[in-house]
């Protein structure tokens, strides 16, 4: 399996897209730190990139990679290899390359320039998780759709849903039911979107003063405690594992 993952990785590196992505992240991150006088403003801009660009790239890159290596997968399956192994090694190859790209592109500048190390480290952690989660999503959607256009379309829709539509719906609900106590509801809703979960995790560190007021205190009590952190990462791991497991199940019985 490791051997197979290695081939997948070589394949990805050969296409040079991932190197371009790494460079892009690196230049943007370093540029932000150089341009902004105070590093927390740069971190804020980086947060936006991580919450928007990272899921998009992970989704699209994985989907395209899957469809492009369809023939390779078919070839591998003609060998005495289990379907589970083939898909898992594909997943780990893509995942590893995306996470590495992020760690080099954003991780190094953050560790070099960020004045507040704890915010920097949580930023990197969330970035890694989001890369894995959206890769796993993309595997699920592309295993499900045979047609390439349909696969990419679904991936894009997912991205739209998690970055924009979901928050819009929540805002709508918050205003429609503003007469009711919605604090616990928001806690649950936050857990149902990995991007929101990551955002709140970082916000608790970055906007700690604002979070001490109103609902914020509730969030701080919940997500700021060690059990809350365990909850955050537990949810993140679930978000990564569930689509992958579903993809594996689908792939095992799929008529290729």
């Amino acid at each position, binding site marked *: 399996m490791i051997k197979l993952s290695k081939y997948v990785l070589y394949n990805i590196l050969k296409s040079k897209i991932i190197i371009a992505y790494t460079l892009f992240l690196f230049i943007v991150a370093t540029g932000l730190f150089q341009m902004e006088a*105070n590093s*927390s*403003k740069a971190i*804020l801009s980086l*947060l*936006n990139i991580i*919450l*928007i660009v990272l899921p998009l790239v992970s989704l699209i890159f994985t989907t395209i990679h899957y469809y492009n290596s369809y023939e390779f997968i078919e070839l591998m399956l003609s060998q005495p290899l289990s379907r589970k192994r083939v898909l898992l090694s594909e997943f780990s190859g893509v995942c590893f390359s995306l996470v590495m790209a992020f760690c080099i592109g954003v991780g190094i500048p953050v560790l070099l320039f960020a004045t507040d190390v704890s915010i920097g480290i949580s930023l990197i952690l969330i970035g890694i998780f989001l890369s894995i989660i959206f890769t796993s999503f993309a595997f699920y959607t592309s295993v499900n759709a045979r047609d390439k256009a349909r696969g990419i379309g679904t991936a894009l829709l997912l991205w739209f849903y998690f*970055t*924009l539509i979901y*928050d*819009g719906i*929540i*805002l709508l609900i*918050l*205003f429609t039911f*503003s007469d009711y106590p*919605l*604090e616990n509801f*928001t806690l649950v809703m*936050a857990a149902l979107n990995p*991007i*929101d979960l990551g*955002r*709140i995790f970082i*916000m608790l560190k970055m*906007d*700690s*003063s*604002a*979070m*001490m*007021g*109103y*609902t*914020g*205190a509730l*969030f701080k009590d919940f997500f700021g405690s060690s059990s809350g952190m365990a909850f955050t990462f537990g949810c993140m791991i679930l978000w990564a594992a569930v689509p992958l497991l579903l993809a594996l199940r689908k792939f095992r019985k799929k008529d290729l």
Partner: protein
Amino acid sequence: MRFLILVIFVFMQLHAFSTTIIVGQQKAVKSIKKGIELAKDGDTVKVMPGVYKEGSIIVKKSITLIGIHFPVIDGESKVENMLISGRQISISGFHFINSKHSSYIDYSAINIIDATKINISNNKITDAHFAIHVSNSTHCTIDRNSITGHATITQSAGNGIHIWKSANILVTNNSITGHRDGIYFEFVTHSDIRNNKSINNIRYGLHFMFSHYNHYAYNLFKNNGAGVAVMYTHHVSMENNIFTQNWGASSYGILLKDITDSKIINNQFLSNTTGILMEGCNRIDVKRNSFNHNGWAMKVQANCENNVISTNNFKNNTFDIATNGTSVMSSFDHNYWDKYEGYDLNKDGIGDVAYHPVSLYSMVIEKNPSALFLLRSFLVTLLDKVEKTMPAITPVELVDKKPTMKPFQL
């Protein structure tokens, strides 16, 4: 020549009359009460180290009481340690413990009533209900006292330095922690409050009402339950103070309610949930302050008029300004805002585009606090950007027409 001799003679007489009485467990005079009884106006009573359990010590003569190496005055939780009334009394170098507590009478370690020219300096006061309580007095100095309490709930706790209906009081270099309000003033005028540290009090670090013409400078108010609250006062000046780590939904760096004709200059507001809340304030100058890492740097309610907010630095705040209405009758010109995205073509250091410090989302949160949880999401950033280009909900007049490009050197 004759006159000179007379003057010298008088001085010698004075000197001869002013004696020093020494009180100590191994001395002739064993109790402080006895020492005071023996003393005449102008005398000094020196108290040697030891623990003195004498009930309430009443000082009405114009004497100087000096503690050597902090003799302990123990109230045994039954009495007020010391009651002072009169003129020209000086108390220094004592350690007051076990003062009486009550939930309906304001007992205090040092109670000063109807007095003038009192000097309370360099004392330690531990676990008192009220530490220093001054009422109906003038020209008193409270200097270098260290006041520590262990208050847990507001109802049964007293204030650190509590001053009522007094004038010309000097409160300097004290440190107050663990009381209800660190410093409490009511009907106190023409007073000066300097270099005090009010930390970890369960309600307000500083609390005053109806206390006009006072001056607060170089004080530190940190991590108090509800920050600092000041009300119904005019002609106050606050300079070079630090307000920090006042965290909570109703906790403010400083809450100004019905304050008029005042100055807030050169202060630092660091990491507060709300830096300044202004309610019904008129003609206040807020200048050269630094607002850093606050949730809301300032909340200026719509009922404030003619305030001038200028030459301040706003950095790393989640929200710069919030308000609760659309009418704006204060000026926000010429500040530095780190969120400003304009340009400066003629290089005069002033941005060419006006800055709107109220973000849409701060208005949204004002109406619906739960929505805080969507802060910094893509959707909210998008909404804010749209609102900045075409203001519809945020007050259009709340604008800095001359934002500076670089922070002020404060």
